[in-house]
């Protein structure tokens, strides 16, 4: 299992658009990806679950990646979050 942390820098927080982009970014990987915010935990493949976290700018997200391609998935998702959220 791989785990990393990301602090949200987007002033609007995890709003619909970055959440949707995240779902798309996770899609190609086989690993299970879970996002934990101070407000709850969500499967990163599920858009509305991610939106329901209502994660705001400045909140720290913990991302866990578990599965056969966890190394590449974790690296790519970390880069994705840094660039988009």
């Amino acid at each position, binding site marked *: 299992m791989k785990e990393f942390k990301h602090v949200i820098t987007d002033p*609007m927080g995890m709003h*619909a658009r970055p959440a949707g982009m995240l779902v798309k970014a996770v899609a190609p990987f086989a690993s299970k990806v879970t996002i934990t915010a101070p407000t709850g935990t969500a499967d990163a*493949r599920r*858009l*509305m679950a991610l*939106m329901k976290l209502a994660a705001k700018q400045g909140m720290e997200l913990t991302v866990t990646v578990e599965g056969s391609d966890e190394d590449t998935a974790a690296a790519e998702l970390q880069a994705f979050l840094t660039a988009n959220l």
Partner: protein
Amino acid sequence: MKIGTGLPVFPGVSIGKAVVYRKAQSTAPVSSGDPAAEQAKFDAAVITARNQLSALYEKAKVELGEEKAAIVEVQMLMLDDLDYLDGVAAAIQGGAAAAVAALETGEEFAAVFAAMDDEYMNARSADIRDMSHRIYDILCGNTGFQLPEGKFLLVAEDLAPSETIQLPRERILAFVTRQGSSSSHTAILARTLNIPSLVQSDIELADAEGCTVLAVDGFTGNWYMDPDDETMAMLKAKQAEAAAGRAALEAYRGKESITKSGKKIILAANIGCPEDAEAALAADCEGVGLMRSEFLYLGRDSLPTEDELFEAYKKVAQAMGDRPVVIRTLDIGADKQVDYMGLEKEENPALGLRGLRICLTREEIFRPQLRAILRASAYGNLMVMFPMVASVWELKEAKALCAQLRQELTAEGIETKDVPIGVMVETPAAAVLAHELAKEAAFFSVGTNDLTQYTLAVDRQNANLGKFYDPYHPALMALLAHIARSANDAGIWAGICGELGADPKMTEKFIEMGYKELSMAAGRILEIRKIVCESEQ
């Protein structure tokens, strides 16, 4: 004739025929009894919905821009949401017809979002509902709403985001909805399209369907069905006046604001956030006379960092180029509470710990803000002003801190420019002491709203005091004259940034008093420029 009211979201008058928009009301087909067949119908409808949304997205991108098209994009993403799809599949397995499953699952999700403690997420429930209604309509065989030819006023219970986008914008004269808020999609679209509109109105859809002529007065918030001759004449006159006024004012775009005797007046805009700078430039402002900093501090859980503040100020500085930008430091207090600052509740917030008083007591708040402004100064023509000054020592102390921070920044190798430091004159003490403050300040900008409230001892939030809140009170005029005279004697400039700055009845008076700058809502600039240019002063 019938008359009613609503909440106006854009000023102007529209008269024409009413078209009532109702969502398609058809009964959903009953389940075939075979869950697998219902699931197949649903899956096919999702594909159709995706194609429709994708066509709509392309149309919206061209006509309304990327940002508004994102509304549609979000719905396309929701269409693929696993929780939604799982929910529908479960309902179908439970015996529901595809159409009913799509609609009801959508309602469940919409209800969850509507109940969240987050305004942005609350608004997303409309998107979820919109998306599930689309699938429902496809499954029911609804082909959608047929619009008549020509121009019309659109009346509806409420309009869903994708509905507002689908509408032929060039044919709509007004929106009148029974629901919606001033920040709803309908209201935003009305402002984008510049059409007079009402939300939260008391209009009855059945009545609107039966009327021949509907008129909307976006100045007063009234609507009229089949107005009588007298009302019609009044509305037409108002409409003509507004149109003629707008056209005449366009002649002043790009002109210098200079009186007949040659006095140059700067007409600047009041802005709330960096994004407002673009609109202010589009309205032909000659600078920013008041940038409120509060928006950077409100609606969040912690103090903004120096870098966040710097980016916001830099954006405005760059957008305005050589034009002057006056940044007011934080004016927050017990009346505009932010939890993370841990301010105590006060009996009398208007006279409490606010404005510069907080800044001088809480350096951890003031330092990053001043450093951010100084850093941003390298990118434009910035000035800073302090709110709620009552004594000369307060100004001296804040100035000393600025000088110290500038030295620190220079030592760190960060470029800064000389930032003129001024006073927002809004306490009677500062007004009376203007001649003393003028020795220390680089400029004055009068906040007439607070100055009126403090001078007359009239709480401006108290609706019962309406007739006592007199911004033209002789006491106030005497203070205003003294402030301008003191500034001119000391060789500094004085401006007005309160509501009186945009008051056409006061423009000439201010010029006569010796004010050099008037700052106002950007939309008023051309109107005031006309008065300046026609003035004999």
